[in-house]
Protein backbone atom coordinates (compact mmCIF):
# COMPACT_ATOMS: atom_id res chain seq x y z
CA UNK A 1 0.00 0.00 0.00
CA UNK A 2 1.20 3.52 -0.72
CA UNK A 3 2.07 5.60 2.34
CA UNK A 4 -0.12 8.66 2.74
CA UNK A 5 2.79 11.05 3.30
CA UNK A 6 4.36 10.08 0.01
CA UNK A 7 1.04 10.34 -1.80
CA UNK A 8 0.74 13.88 -0.46
CA UNK A 9 4.20 14.70 -1.84
CA UNK A 10 3.18 13.16 -5.13
CA UNK A 11 0.19 15.50 -5.15
CA UNK A 12 2.46 18.52 -4.54
CA UNK A 13 4.68 17.30 -7.36
CA UNK A 14 1.64 16.96 -9.60
CA UNK A 15 0.81 20.62 -8.93
CA UNK A 16 4.31 21.61 -10.08
CA UNK A 17 3.88 19.46 -13.19
CA UNK A 18 0.62 21.24 -13.98
CA UNK A 19 2.21 24.65 -13.31
CA UNK A 20 5.13 23.98 -15.65
CA UNK A 21 2.85 22.49 -18.31
CA UNK A 22 0.36 25.40 -18.19
CA UNK A 23 3.06 28.08 -18.30
CA UNK A 24 4.94 26.34 -21.13
CA UNK A 25 1.72 25.87 -23.04
CA UNK A 26 0.79 29.55 -22.70
CA UNK A 27 4.28 30.55 -23.84
CA UNK A 28 4.00 28.11 -26.77
CA UNK A 29 0.61 29.55 -27.70
CA UNK A 30 2.04 33.07 -27.65
CA UNK A 31 5.14 32.15 -29.68
CA UNK A 32 3.10 30.01 -32.08
CA UNK A 33 0.38 32.61 -32.67
CA UNK A 34 2.91 35.40 -33.23
CA UNK A 35 4.84 33.27 -35.73
CA UNK A 36 1.60 32.21 -37.42
CA UNK A 37 0.42 35.82 -37.79
CA UNK A 38 3.84 36.88 -39.06
CA UNK A 39 4.00 34.12 -41.67
CA UNK A 40 0.40 34.09 -42.93
CA UNK A 41 1.52 36.13 -45.89
CA UNK A 42 4.84 35.04 -47.32
CA UNK A 43 7.37 37.74 -46.59
CA UNK A 44 10.87 36.57 -47.46
CA UNK A 45 12.81 37.77 -44.39
CA UNK A 46 10.22 36.79 -41.77
CA UNK A 47 9.76 33.51 -43.56
CA UNK A 48 13.49 32.76 -43.51
CA UNK A 49 13.63 33.43 -39.76
CA UNK A 50 10.64 31.16 -39.26
CA UNK A 51 12.16 28.37 -41.37
CA UNK A 52 15.37 28.38 -39.33
CA UNK A 53 13.46 28.52 -36.03
CA UNK A 54 11.11 25.68 -36.95
CA UNK A 55 13.90 23.54 -38.35
CA UNK A 56 15.94 23.83 -35.13
CA UNK A 57 13.17 23.40 -32.59
CA UNK A 58 11.33 20.58 -34.35
CA UNK A 59 14.58 18.78 -35.16
CA UNK A 60 15.92 18.40 -31.62
CA UNK A 61 14.42 16.56 -28.59
CA UNK A 62 12.86 18.92 -26.04
CA UNK A 63 14.89 17.22 -23.28
CA UNK A 64 18.12 18.26 -25.00
CA UNK A 65 16.87 21.84 -25.38
CA UNK A 66 15.98 21.87 -21.67
CA UNK A 67 19.45 20.56 -20.71
CA UNK A 68 21.02 23.23 -22.90
CA UNK A 69 18.97 26.03 -21.30
CA UNK A 70 19.55 24.73 -17.79
CA UNK A 71 23.31 24.10 -17.96
CA UNK A 72 24.32 26.72 -20.52
CA UNK A 73 21.43 29.17 -20.03
CA UNK A 74 23.16 31.71 -17.81
CA UNK A 75 26.25 31.63 -20.03
CA UNK A 76 24.15 32.14 -23.15
CA UNK A 77 22.23 35.02 -21.55
CA UNK A 78 25.50 36.62 -20.41
CA UNK A 79 26.99 36.52 -23.91
CA UNK A 80 23.70 37.76 -25.37
CA UNK A 81 23.71 40.80 -23.08
CA UNK A 82 27.44 41.43 -23.53
CA UNK A 83 26.70 42.16 -27.20
CA UNK A 84 24.81 45.26 -26.09
CA UNK A 85 27.49 46.02 -23.52
CA UNK A 86 25.67 44.83 -20.40
CA UNK A 87 27.14 42.51 -17.81
CA UNK A 88 24.53 40.31 -16.26
CA UNK A 89 24.62 37.18 -14.20
CA UNK A 90 21.30 35.39 -14.27
CA UNK A 91 20.90 32.05 -12.58
CA UNK A 92 18.68 29.74 -14.58
CA UNK A 93 16.70 27.37 -12.38
CA UNK A 94 15.19 24.09 -13.65
CA UNK A 95 11.68 25.54 -13.57
CA UNK A 96 12.52 28.45 -15.89
CA UNK A 97 14.64 26.24 -18.16
CA UNK A 98 11.78 23.73 -18.51
CA UNK A 99 9.14 26.37 -19.22
CA UNK A 100 11.25 28.22 -21.79
CA UNK A 101 12.43 25.01 -23.49
CA UNK A 102 8.92 23.52 -23.80
CA UNK A 103 7.44 26.89 -24.77
CA UNK A 104 9.93 27.46 -27.60
CA UNK A 105 9.82 23.85 -28.88
CA UNK A 106 6.04 23.53 -28.93
CA UNK A 107 5.64 27.13 -30.16
CA UNK A 108 7.10 25.86 -33.43
CA UNK A 109 4.45 23.12 -33.65
CA UNK A 110 1.60 25.42 -32.61
CA UNK A 111 2.58 28.01 -35.23
CA UNK A 112 1.91 25.41 -37.94
CA UNK A 113 -1.45 24.49 -36.40
CA UNK A 114 -2.58 28.12 -36.05
CA UNK A 115 -1.38 29.13 -39.50
CA UNK A 116 -3.27 26.35 -41.25
CA UNK A 117 -6.35 27.25 -39.19
CA UNK A 118 -6.05 30.88 -40.35
CA UNK A 119 -5.84 29.65 -43.93
CA UNK A 120 -9.02 27.65 -43.36
CA UNK A 121 -11.08 30.64 -42.16
CA UNK A 122 -13.36 31.43 -45.12
CA UNK A 123 -11.95 34.40 -47.11
CA UNK A 124 -15.40 36.02 -46.96
CA UNK A 125 -14.82 36.70 -43.26
CA UNK A 126 -11.74 38.83 -43.99
CA UNK A 127 -13.57 40.60 -46.83
CA UNK A 128 -16.66 41.25 -44.72
CA UNK A 129 -14.55 42.72 -41.90
CA UNK A 130 -12.83 44.92 -44.48
CA UNK A 131 -16.06 46.10 -46.07
CA UNK A 132 -17.57 46.94 -42.68
CA UNK A 133 -14.49 49.08 -41.95
CA UNK A 134 -13.67 47.15 -38.79
CA UNK A 135 -10.18 48.21 -37.71
CA UNK A 136 -7.65 45.47 -38.38
CA UNK A 137 -6.70 44.64 -34.76
CA UNK A 138 -10.39 44.45 -33.82
CA UNK A 139 -11.08 42.25 -36.83
CA UNK A 140 -8.28 39.86 -35.85
CA UNK A 141 -9.29 39.66 -32.20
CA UNK A 142 -13.06 39.50 -32.54
CA UNK A 143 -13.66 37.99 -35.97
CA UNK A 144 -10.74 35.89 -37.15
CA UNK A 145 -9.02 34.50 -34.04
CA UNK A 146 -12.22 33.12 -32.44
CA UNK A 147 -12.81 31.16 -35.65
CA UNK A 148 -9.17 30.10 -35.68
CA UNK A 149 -9.68 28.75 -32.16
CA UNK A 150 -12.63 26.66 -33.35
CA UNK A 151 -10.70 25.23 -36.29
CA UNK A 152 -7.47 24.62 -34.40
CA UNK A 153 -9.05 23.29 -31.20
CA UNK A 154 -8.62 19.52 -31.77
CA UNK A 155 -4.94 19.91 -32.69
CA UNK A 156 -4.36 22.40 -29.86
CA UNK A 157 -5.85 20.10 -27.24
CA UNK A 158 -3.65 17.26 -28.54
CA UNK A 159 -0.65 19.54 -28.21
CA UNK A 160 -1.56 20.31 -24.60
CA UNK A 161 -1.45 16.59 -23.77
CA UNK A 162 1.92 16.30 -25.49
CA UNK A 163 3.29 19.26 -23.50
CA UNK A 164 1.95 17.82 -20.24
CA UNK A 165 3.55 14.43 -20.90
CA UNK A 166 6.81 16.04 -21.93
CA UNK A 167 6.92 17.81 -18.58
CA UNK A 168 7.41 14.37 -17.00
CA UNK A 169 10.43 13.81 -19.24
CA UNK A 170 11.86 17.23 -18.46
CA UNK A 171 11.98 16.26 -14.77
CA UNK A 172 15.36 14.71 -15.68
CA UNK A 173 16.96 18.18 -15.58
CA UNK A 174 16.23 18.24 -11.84
CA UNK A 175 12.77 19.72 -11.77
CA UNK A 176 10.96 18.72 -8.57
CA UNK A 177 7.69 17.46 -9.99
CA UNK A 178 5.58 14.31 -9.83
CA UNK A 179 8.24 11.97 -11.28
CA UNK A 180 10.89 13.21 -8.86
CA UNK A 181 8.66 12.45 -5.87
CA UNK A 182 7.62 9.09 -7.35
CA UNK A 183 11.32 8.17 -7.63
CA UNK A 184 11.97 9.42 -4.10
CA UNK A 185 9.08 7.45 -2.62
CA UNK A 186 10.09 4.27 -4.46
CA UNK A 187 13.65 4.61 -3.25
CA UNK A 188 12.60 4.92 0.39
CA UNK A 189 9.77 2.37 0.50
CA UNK A 190 11.25 -0.17 -1.95
CA UNK A 191 7.78 -0.34 -3.48
CA UNK A 192 8.28 1.49 -6.76
CA UNK A 193 5.39 -0.09 -8.65
CA UNK A 194 2.55 1.55 -6.76
CA UNK A 195 4.04 5.07 -6.94
CA UNK A 196 4.71 4.91 -10.63
CA UNK A 197 1.17 3.57 -11.17
CA UNK A 198 -0.11 6.58 -9.24
CA UNK A 199 1.91 8.85 -11.53
CA UNK A 200 0.45 7.03 -14.55
CA UNK A 201 -3.05 7.49 -13.09
CA UNK A 202 -2.41 11.21 -12.72
CA UNK A 203 -1.57 11.56 -16.41
CA UNK A 204 -4.59 9.47 -17.45
CA UNK A 205 -6.80 11.63 -15.26
CA UNK A 206 -5.43 14.78 -16.87
CA UNK A 207 -6.07 13.32 -20.34
CA UNK A 208 -9.69 12.62 -19.38
CA UNK A 209 -10.06 16.09 -17.91
CA UNK A 210 -8.65 17.61 -21.09
CA UNK A 211 -11.26 15.76 -23.10
CA UNK A 212 -14.07 17.20 -20.97
CA UNK A 213 -12.69 20.74 -21.09
CA UNK A 214 -12.19 20.51 -24.86
CA UNK A 215 -15.81 19.50 -25.27
CA UNK A 216 -16.85 22.56 -23.28
CA UNK A 217 -14.70 24.92 -25.34
CA UNK A 218 -15.96 23.26 -28.52
CA UNK A 219 -19.52 24.01 -27.47
CA UNK A 220 -18.54 27.62 -26.85
CA UNK A 221 -16.55 28.22 -30.06
CA UNK A 222 -19.09 26.43 -32.22
CA UNK A 223 -22.12 28.27 -30.84
CA UNK A 224 -22.56 30.44 -33.94
CA UNK A 225 -22.23 27.53 -36.29
CA UNK A 226 -25.17 25.93 -38.06
CA UNK A 227 -25.04 22.18 -37.74
CA UNK A 228 -26.30 19.94 -40.52
CA UNK A 229 -29.54 18.23 -39.56
CA UNK A 230 -28.78 14.66 -38.44
CA UNK A 231 -29.34 12.30 -41.34
CA UNK A 232 -32.22 9.95 -40.77
CA UNK A 233 -31.25 6.32 -40.52
CA UNK A 234 -33.52 5.11 -43.36
CA UNK A 235 -32.46 7.76 -45.87
CA UNK A 236 -28.84 7.14 -45.07
CA UNK A 237 -29.30 3.43 -45.78
CA UNK A 238 -31.39 3.98 -48.91
CA UNK A 239 -28.56 6.09 -50.31
Amino acid at each position, binding site marked *: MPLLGFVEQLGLGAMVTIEVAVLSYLLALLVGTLFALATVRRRPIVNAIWQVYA*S*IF*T*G*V*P*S*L*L*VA*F*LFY*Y*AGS*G*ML*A*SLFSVVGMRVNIEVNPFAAAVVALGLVYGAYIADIVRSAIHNVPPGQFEAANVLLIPRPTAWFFVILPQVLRLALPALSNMW*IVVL*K*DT*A*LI*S*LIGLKEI*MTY*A*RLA*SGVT*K*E*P*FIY*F*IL*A*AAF*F*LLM*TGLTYLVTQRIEGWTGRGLRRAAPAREETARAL
Partner: protein
Amino acid sequence: MHYDIALAWESLPTLLQGTLTTFIVLLPVLVLGLLISIPVALARLERGPGSLLAAAYIIFFRGVPSIVLLYLIYSGLPQFSVIRNTALWTLFSNAYFCAWVGLTLTHSGYMGEIVRGGLAAVPPGTIEAAQALGLGRMQILFKLRLPMAARYALRAYQNELLIMVKSTSAVSAITLVDLTAAANTVFDYTYDPFTPLVTAAGIYWVIINAMRYAFNVADSRLNRHLALK
Protein backbone atom coordinates in the same frame (compact mmCIF):
# COMPACT_ATOMS: atom_id res chain seq x y z
CA MET B 1 30.09 31.14 -24.04
CA HIS B 2 31.54 29.94 -27.31
CA TYR B 3 31.52 26.81 -29.40
CA ASP B 4 34.79 24.91 -28.89
CA ILE B 5 35.48 23.12 -32.18
CA ALA B 6 38.47 21.17 -30.82
CA LEU B 7 36.36 19.81 -27.97
CA ALA B 8 33.51 19.00 -30.34
CA TRP B 9 35.89 16.97 -32.52
CA GLU B 10 37.38 15.25 -29.49
CA SER B 11 34.00 14.28 -28.05
CA LEU B 12 32.61 13.12 -31.37
CA PRO B 13 33.39 9.40 -30.78
CA THR B 14 31.49 9.48 -27.46
CA LEU B 15 28.54 11.20 -29.11
CA LEU B 16 28.53 8.76 -32.05
CA GLN B 17 28.56 5.87 -29.57
CA GLY B 18 25.48 7.52 -28.00
CA THR B 19 23.90 7.84 -31.44
CA LEU B 20 24.45 4.11 -31.96
CA THR B 21 22.67 3.39 -28.66
CA THR B 22 19.81 5.64 -29.75
CA PHE B 23 19.41 3.57 -32.92
CA ILE B 24 19.76 0.24 -31.07
CA VAL B 25 16.87 1.37 -28.87
CA LEU B 26 14.86 2.84 -31.74
CA LEU B 27 14.89 0.21 -34.50
CA PRO B 28 13.33 -2.80 -32.67
CA VAL B 29 10.73 -0.42 -31.21
CA LEU B 30 9.69 0.72 -34.67
CA VAL B 31 9.36 -2.85 -36.01
CA LEU B 32 7.58 -4.28 -32.95
CA GLY B 33 5.35 -1.23 -32.52
CA LEU B 34 4.15 -1.49 -36.10
CA LEU B 35 3.55 -5.26 -35.83
CA ILE B 36 1.51 -4.87 -32.62
CA SER B 37 -0.44 -1.88 -33.89
CA ILE B 38 -1.98 -3.75 -36.85
CA PRO B 39 -4.01 -6.27 -34.79
CA VAL B 40 -4.89 -3.47 -32.34
CA ALA B 41 -6.21 -1.31 -35.19
CA LEU B 42 -8.12 -4.22 -36.73
CA ALA B 43 -9.70 -5.05 -33.36
CA ARG B 44 -10.62 -1.39 -32.95
CA LEU B 45 -12.47 -1.41 -36.27
CA GLU B 46 -14.53 -4.52 -35.50
CA ARG B 47 -17.49 -4.51 -33.15
CA GLY B 48 -17.47 -6.42 -29.87
CA PRO B 49 -15.36 -6.77 -26.74
CA GLY B 50 -12.11 -6.77 -28.74
CA SER B 51 -12.83 -3.23 -29.83
CA LEU B 52 -13.23 -2.03 -26.25
CA LEU B 53 -10.03 -3.79 -25.23
CA ALA B 54 -8.14 -2.18 -28.11
CA ALA B 55 -9.60 1.22 -27.20
CA ALA B 56 -8.45 0.78 -23.58
CA TYR B 57 -4.97 -0.24 -24.81
CA ILE B 58 -4.73 2.86 -26.98
CA ILE B 59 -6.06 5.22 -24.29
CA PHE B 60 -3.71 3.85 -21.64
CA PHE B 61 -0.48 3.79 -23.62
CA ARG B 62 -1.13 7.12 -25.33
CA GLY B 63 -2.13 8.79 -22.07
CA VAL B 64 0.86 7.71 -19.96
CA PRO B 65 4.22 9.40 -20.65
CA SER B 66 6.85 6.97 -21.91
CA ILE B 67 9.17 7.87 -19.04
CA VAL B 68 6.53 6.65 -16.54
CA LEU B 69 6.28 3.36 -18.46
CA LEU B 70 10.07 3.02 -18.48
CA TYR B 71 10.25 3.49 -14.71
CA LEU B 72 7.31 1.12 -14.19
CA ILE B 73 9.04 -1.60 -16.17
CA TYR B 74 12.64 -1.01 -15.12
CA SER B 75 12.18 -0.27 -11.41
CA GLY B 76 8.52 -1.18 -10.76
CA LEU B 77 8.24 -4.72 -12.06
CA PRO B 78 11.30 -6.20 -10.25
CA GLN B 79 9.41 -5.53 -7.02
CA PHE B 80 7.40 -8.70 -7.76
CA SER B 81 9.06 -12.00 -7.04
CA VAL B 82 7.44 -13.50 -10.15
CA ILE B 83 9.79 -11.32 -12.17
CA ARG B 84 12.79 -11.41 -9.86
CA ASN B 85 13.00 -15.11 -9.11
CA THR B 86 12.34 -16.57 -12.53
CA ALA B 87 14.00 -16.61 -15.92
CA LEU B 88 12.22 -13.33 -16.68
CA TRP B 89 14.78 -11.58 -14.49
CA THR B 90 17.52 -11.98 -17.10
CA LEU B 91 15.27 -10.01 -19.45
CA PHE B 92 13.94 -7.35 -17.08
CA SER B 93 17.31 -6.61 -15.49
CA ASN B 94 18.51 -5.54 -18.93
CA ALA B 95 17.94 -1.83 -19.51
CA TYR B 96 17.81 -2.29 -23.28
CA PHE B 97 15.01 -4.85 -22.96
CA CYS B 98 13.02 -2.53 -20.67
CA ALA B 99 13.52 0.39 -23.06
CA TRP B 100 12.31 -1.75 -25.96
CA VAL B 101 9.20 -2.89 -24.07
CA GLY B 102 8.32 0.56 -22.70
CA LEU B 103 8.78 2.51 -25.92
CA THR B 104 7.11 -0.25 -28.00
CA LEU B 105 3.98 0.01 -25.86
CA THR B 106 3.83 3.80 -26.35
CA HIS B 107 4.62 3.56 -30.05
CA SER B 108 2.07 0.81 -30.69
CA GLY B 109 -0.61 2.87 -28.93
CA TYR B 110 -0.05 5.82 -31.24
CA MET B 111 0.43 3.60 -34.30
CA GLY B 112 -2.83 1.80 -33.47
CA GLU B 113 -4.72 5.04 -34.04
CA ILE B 114 -2.72 5.89 -37.16
CA VAL B 115 -3.24 2.46 -38.76
CA ARG B 116 -6.92 2.59 -37.83
CA GLY B 117 -7.23 5.97 -39.53
CA GLY B 118 -5.49 4.62 -42.63
CA LEU B 119 -7.66 1.50 -42.75
CA ALA B 120 -10.82 3.56 -42.24
CA ALA B 121 -9.88 5.75 -45.20
CA VAL B 122 -9.83 2.79 -47.63
CA PRO B 123 -12.97 3.26 -49.78
CA PRO B 124 -15.56 0.57 -48.93
CA GLY B 125 -16.25 0.10 -52.64
CA THR B 126 -12.73 -1.24 -53.14
CA ILE B 127 -13.25 -3.89 -50.48
CA GLU B 128 -16.68 -4.82 -51.84
CA ALA B 129 -15.20 -5.12 -55.32
CA ALA B 130 -12.53 -7.46 -53.96
CA GLN B 131 -15.16 -9.54 -52.15
CA ALA B 132 -17.26 -9.72 -55.34
CA LEU B 133 -14.18 -10.95 -57.17
CA GLY B 134 -13.86 -13.76 -54.64
CA LEU B 135 -10.72 -12.67 -52.76
CA GLY B 136 -10.34 -14.14 -49.28
CA ARG B 137 -10.27 -12.09 -46.08
CA MET B 138 -6.50 -12.38 -45.67
CA GLN B 139 -5.90 -11.60 -49.34
CA ILE B 140 -8.03 -8.47 -49.03
CA LEU B 141 -6.18 -7.46 -45.87
CA PHE B 142 -2.64 -7.94 -47.14
CA LYS B 143 -3.06 -7.10 -50.83
CA LEU B 144 -5.56 -4.25 -50.56
CA ARG B 145 -6.38 -2.78 -47.18
CA LEU B 146 -2.90 -2.57 -45.63
CA PRO B 147 -1.06 -1.30 -48.75
CA MET B 148 -3.73 1.36 -49.30
CA ALA B 149 -3.79 2.29 -45.60
CA ALA B 150 0.00 2.69 -45.71
CA ARG B 151 -0.33 5.31 -48.44
CA TYR B 152 -3.07 7.22 -46.60
CA ALA B 153 -1.25 7.10 -43.27
CA LEU B 154 2.22 7.99 -44.56
CA ARG B 155 2.27 11.61 -43.31
CA ALA B 156 0.84 10.70 -39.92
CA TYR B 157 3.50 7.97 -39.69
CA GLN B 158 6.19 10.54 -40.48
CA ASN B 159 5.06 12.68 -37.53
CA GLU B 160 4.96 9.71 -35.18
CA LEU B 161 8.35 8.41 -36.31
CA LEU B 162 10.03 11.77 -35.75
CA ILE B 163 8.39 12.00 -32.31
CA MET B 164 9.73 8.51 -31.50
CA VAL B 165 13.29 9.48 -32.49
CA LYS B 166 13.06 12.41 -30.08
CA SER B 167 11.41 10.41 -27.28
CA THR B 168 14.32 7.95 -27.21
CA SER B 169 16.05 10.62 -25.11
CA ALA B 170 13.87 9.33 -22.25
CA VAL B 171 15.93 6.13 -21.98
CA SER B 172 18.69 7.99 -20.17
CA ALA B 173 16.36 7.75 -17.16
CA ILE B 174 16.98 3.98 -17.01
CA THR B 175 20.79 4.18 -17.22
CA LEU B 176 21.20 3.81 -21.00
CA VAL B 177 23.71 6.23 -22.50
CA ASP B 178 21.96 7.50 -25.61
CA LEU B 179 22.93 10.61 -27.57
CA THR B 180 21.46 13.04 -25.01
CA ALA B 181 23.07 11.20 -22.11
CA ALA B 182 26.40 11.00 -23.98
CA ALA B 183 26.41 14.79 -24.38
CA ASN B 184 25.83 15.08 -20.64
CA THR B 185 28.76 12.73 -19.93
CA VAL B 186 31.05 14.96 -21.98
CA PHE B 187 29.75 17.93 -19.98
CA ASP B 188 30.56 16.10 -16.72
CA TYR B 189 34.19 15.60 -17.82
CA THR B 190 34.83 18.98 -19.39
CA TYR B 191 32.53 21.41 -17.52
CA ASP B 192 31.55 22.80 -20.92
CA PRO B 193 27.81 22.26 -21.36
CA PHE B 194 27.43 24.30 -24.54
CA THR B 195 29.68 22.46 -26.99
CA PRO B 196 28.59 18.82 -26.44
CA LEU B 197 24.88 19.67 -26.18
CA VAL B 198 24.93 21.78 -29.34
CA THR B 199 26.89 19.07 -31.17
CA ALA B 200 24.35 16.46 -30.04
CA ALA B 201 21.55 18.77 -31.19
CA GLY B 202 23.27 18.94 -34.58
CA ILE B 203 23.39 15.14 -34.83
CA TYR B 204 19.69 14.87 -33.94
CA TRP B 205 18.92 17.56 -36.51
CA VAL B 206 20.72 15.63 -39.25
CA ILE B 207 18.91 12.37 -38.35
CA ILE B 208 15.49 14.05 -38.24
CA ASN B 209 15.97 15.90 -41.51
CA ALA B 210 17.34 12.82 -43.29
CA MET B 211 14.13 11.04 -42.23
CA ARG B 212 11.99 13.96 -43.43
CA TYR B 213 13.74 13.77 -46.78
CA ALA B 214 13.20 10.00 -47.00
CA PHE B 215 9.48 10.48 -46.28
CA ASN B 216 9.20 13.15 -48.97
CA VAL B 217 10.75 10.74 -51.47
CA ALA B 218 8.48 7.89 -50.33
CA ASP B 219 5.44 10.16 -50.50
CA SER B 220 6.18 11.29 -54.05
CA ARG B 221 6.70 7.65 -55.10
CA LEU B 222 3.75 6.04 -53.31
CA ASN B 223 1.22 8.82 -53.73
CA ARG B 224 2.19 9.77 -57.28
CA HIS B 225 -1.39 9.20 -58.41
CA LEU B 226 -2.61 11.89 -55.97
CA ALA B 227 -0.11 14.55 -57.03
CA LEU B 228 -1.47 17.72 -58.62
CA LYS B 229 -0.48 17.77 -62.25
